[in-house]
Each structure stands twice: as C-alpha cells, then as structure tokens.
C-alpha cells in the first residue's frame, strides 16, 4: 500500500487499461455505424434517382435509329409500357443488341419523363406516362400548411399553459400524456381520420370529396402537436426564472409575463419546434395515404383531394418495375423529400444559432 501511494515515476507511469480502451472504441464504433447507415441511405436514394438523368446526348441519333428499327420489328423485346403495341411472339433472333436496346429505350423514356416533370399531371401508368411533380408538390405544401396552421397554435399555447399556468400536479399529468401521443402509430391516426374525422367534417362542412387536404391536414396536426408541444415546453421552462421574477416584480401579472417575457425569450426553441413539426408532416406517409384521397389535383381549394409526395412513394413503389423510369422518378421524389427536410433542419439550425448569437452576445 505504502508503495502505491508514494509519488514515484513508477506509480505515475502511464498504464494501458484494456476495458477503458475497448469501451471507448465500442461506443465510437456504434456512433460511426449509425452515421454510416444514414449516409448510405442518402447515397442509395440518390443513386437510384440518377439513372433518370442519363439520356445520353451523344446517343441521341443512335436512339432515333434504334427506335425506328424497333418500330419496324424489334418491338417484342421492349418492356413495360411499350409492350401493348407488340405482338406476343418474340420474332427476333439477334441476341446481341438486346441489352443495348433496353438501355436505349429506357433513355428515350427518361427523356420524355424529364420533359414532363415540370407539369402538373401525374399519370405514371399510362400509354403516355406523365410525371408532373407540381400537383404532388403543391398538394404536399397544402396539407403541410393546414396541419401546421392547426398544430402550431395549439401546441404552443398548450405548452404555454403547462409551463406558466398549470398547477404542478396537472403539469405532471399533462406533459407525459401529450408526449405519449408522439409515439402514437401514424396508421392509427390515419385510420381514425379515415373512419371518423372524414365523415364528421363532411357532415359539418358539406363538401364533395370525403377525403381531402383538410381532413389529412387535421389528422397530421395530431402527429405534429406532440412534437411542437414537447419542444416548446422545454424551451419555455428553460427560460431563466429570474426573467419571470423580474417581470412579476414590476407588477406584471402572470399572463403578461407569459406572453411578453417568457414567450419572446423562448422564440428560438419555438421556431425549432415548428420546423421539426413541419418536417414530420412533410414526410408523413401513412396518414397522407389514408386521409387525403390521393388524387393528384392542382387546386387551391383545401377541400379537394390531394396526393402528397410521400404518399406517392408509399402507394406506387411496391408496384413499379425495378429500374424503369417510373422507379427512378419515385426515387427522385425521395431525394427531393430528403433535400427539403435537410434544408429545413439546416435552416432551423442556422437561424437559431444566428438568433441565439444575436440575443446572448448582444450584437
């Protein structure tokens, strides 16, 4: 014992501790694994979307020739949508150019598809397929807007109530109860919207299509409220008590303090909560699939059916031919969703950072 406690070069010598080393490496490994998985998903989605943009300019001439050739008799080897004009029997005995043909036909289709992306008609399964993203994009925005317009005030005011007005015992019940809703399976919310809310709102407002953007938006707000509520509540309760005391000591009453001091001081957190809620609604698939009616219409009327980007992937991915144009377009939509939510989170991050800087450095 005495030897160990003495300060000698020996007792202070660096030691290799195996368990410490292993634990550290294990944790690091797990962290990098999860990051890698996310990056791989990202890469995969983009990789599957990229073939859409391979239209081979140099090959254009060759493509035309090929297409005329095909029209003259090679038709049977073509695939997917062009089959309907073909005779059922395989006529050709030239095996070599087959792979090449397939590729070329796909590129011709891709080229057509790319031209239609900037339109409003979404008709991927037809003789003349059209992949207009605008109606989907607009529909998504419409549903998101409705959902956030409902969820943000409700979530924020509920949070304000729990953090500023509710007695302690009520807060201890309310917060977990609302947070529980965040773990609610979205299919259950969708089911509820489909069976109960849709009929209820139709009876109430008397519009034509039972499933529409409004019903979808209301249902999705149920998914967004817990997120907005939880984060806002955290932001509000982390406002220093001295702020509230200062306000109260000036003779402000509780609601004045809550609205003019606590709420402004928590703005960055509230902003973040709204953006996260928006992200949730934006990517929500199951509720959209079940409650929005899934008709790709371009209309400003909130009581028309809409088809969202996420629901389109959800509905069509299972039925699409692997590697064909439609498949690539669906991945393009996936990539777009990725970029949107990424952009939204980035915006939240930078805005909040900038804002906090300004507030707390006094610049």
């Amino acid at each position: 014992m005495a030897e160990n406690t003495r300060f000698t070069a020996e007792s202070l010598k660096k030691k290799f501790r195996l368990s410490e080393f292993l634990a550290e490496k294990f944790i690091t490994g797990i962290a990098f694994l999860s990051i890698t998985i996310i990056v791989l998903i990202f890469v995969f989605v983009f990789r599957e979307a990229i073939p859409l943009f391979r239209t081979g300019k140099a090959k254009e001439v060759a493509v035309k020739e090929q297409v005329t050739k095909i029209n003259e008799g090679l038709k049977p080897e073509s695939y997917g949508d062009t089959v309907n004009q073909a005779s059922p029997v395989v006529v050709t005995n030239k095996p070599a150019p087959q792979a090449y043909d397939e590729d070329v036909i796909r590129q011709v289709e891709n080229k057509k598809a790319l031209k239609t992306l900037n339109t409003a008609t979404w008709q991927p399964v037809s003789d003349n397929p059209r992949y207009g993203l605008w109606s989907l994009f607009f529909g998504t925005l419409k549903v998101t807007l409705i959902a956030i317009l409902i969820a943000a005030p409700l979530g924020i005011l509920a949070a304000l109530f729990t953090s500023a007005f509710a007695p302690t015992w009520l807060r201890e019940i309310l917060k977990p109860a609302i947070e529980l809703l965040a773990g609610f399976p979205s299919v259950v919310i969708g089911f509820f919207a489909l069976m109960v809310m849709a009929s209820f709102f139709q009876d109430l407002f008397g519009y034509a299509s039972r499933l529409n953007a409004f019903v979808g938006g209301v249902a999705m707000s149920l998914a967004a409220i817990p997120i907005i509520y939880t984060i806002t509540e955290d932001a509000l309760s982390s406002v220093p008590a001295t702020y509230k005391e200062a306000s109260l000591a000036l003779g402000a009453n509780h609601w004045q303090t809550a609205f003019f001091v606590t709420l402004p001081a928590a703005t960055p957190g509230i902003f973040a909560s709204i953006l996260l809620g928006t992200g949730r609604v934006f990517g929500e698939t199951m509720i959209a699939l079940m409650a929005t009616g899934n008709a790709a219409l371009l209309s400003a009327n909130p009581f028309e059916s809409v088809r969202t980007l996420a629901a389109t992937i959800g509905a069509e991915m299972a039925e699409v031919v692997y590697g064909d144009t439609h498949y690539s377009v669906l991945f393009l939509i996936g990539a777009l969703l990725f970029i949107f939510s990424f952009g939204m989170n980035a915006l939240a991050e930078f805005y909040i950072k900038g804002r906090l800087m300004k507030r707390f450095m006094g610049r």
Partner: protein
Amino acid sequence: MKEIKIKIKDLTLHYGQKLALNNICLEIPDRRVTALIGPSGCGKSTFLRTLNRMNDLIPSARISGEVLIDELNIYDRNIDVVNLRKRVGMVFQKSNPFSKSIYENVAYGPRINGINERKVLDEIVETSLKRAAIWNEVKDRLRDSALGLSGGQQQRLCIARTLSVNPDVILMDEPASALDPLSTSKIEELIHQLKEQYTIVIVTHNMQQAARVSDYTAFFYLGELIEFGKTKTIFTNPTIKQTEDYITGRFG
C-alpha cells in the same frame, strides 16, 4: 428616528417544515437605506422577498404575521399582489435584463400598466435611465440589445427598469455582489442618490458596503433578527455579542 414606512409584526415563515424566519419584528424608516446583513442562509433574502410577496411564488412557503406598508397589511386578503409589486420594486442579485432592447427593457413596466403613448414612454425611459445614472452611457444606443451592456451597466439598467413604474420602496438583493469594485461604487453612489426619494432595503454580504451605504442595519442569524439599529451604532458599538462577532469577522 424618521417616519416609519414598513412595519413588520411577528413575521414567521416556513418552507415546508423548515422554519426560515422566526418572529421578526422590525420597523423600516422612510427614505432611508436599511441594510440586512448576516451569514448565508440566515433568512435575510427570504425576509426581503416577503416585503413584496415574491415568496408567494414558492408553493411550500407559509407565512404568518403582518407586514404593514404605510399602515396597510400587505398580507391582507384584499391586497392585490400585482398592484403591491408596482409600489414595491425589486432589484435582483444577478442582473436580469430581458432579451429586448435597452429602451424596451425600461418601457416594459409602463407598457404593462397600459401606457402606450410614444411621447410618455420616451419621457419615462429617459427619466428612469437618468435617475439610474446610466443615461449618458446608453442614450445613443437605446435600440441595441440590453444583453450587450456590461454587468454593471445591466444592473443599473435593471434599477432603471424598477424605477420606471415609480415605486415607493426598492428592495435590493445583493445588487453588487457580482460586480467589479468600480461598478459597485457606481451602484453605491446611485443608492445614495435614490434614498432621497425612495425607501431602500438592501441585502448585502459585504460588510463595508453595508457600512458605506446604509443608515440602518439589521443583523439576521438563523432566521432570527438579532439586532437592529443605526448603522453607526451597529458597527461601532453593537449591544449583542453575536453581532459583534459577525461584524469583526469572528464567525460567519
């Protein structure tokens, strides 16, 4: 002795089961500075917060006894706490300006009292900042964030904010404990000026500060008021041994 502003009668306060203030009787004179001294945890801050009922915010606090301000018991059932706090302002230990502009910080008090007229607000902001001796430093940057000010300036801004609602009594909870000597002396100077118009009760850990700024001193120990008297008497010729021990630094 001058006119009495605040009269405390048999004030007892419990936090849950714990006795924090025991039977305090004290008379605080009008337009004078009264310092509360004592070791940490002796109840002086708690006592200060009973004077504008900030302890109401703590659910476990139970209070008995009377606090009379201008002969009116502020613990009476019919007293409106909001109006009480407008007359009894408070400055906190840690300067806590809102994350708003300098102007808005001072204008907040009048605004919540329903004053929205630009001209009136401008005037209140200016006089409050002048009285808090910070006007010259901030008059060109009223729109800047209050959090960009130095610690001492922030504290004077908080004092200006307190003055903006025109209170009779100002409670100060160690207002200079987090400040450097220069800012501290500015605050002390300010207290000297303010006592012409306001009754000031100040909690301080700094014995020299108490001796410098106050006219009367109350010594608290373990929730009891040990001794109260003119600052001069307390510091030069205390009647109770405990007070003497504390002031000379033998304990606490």
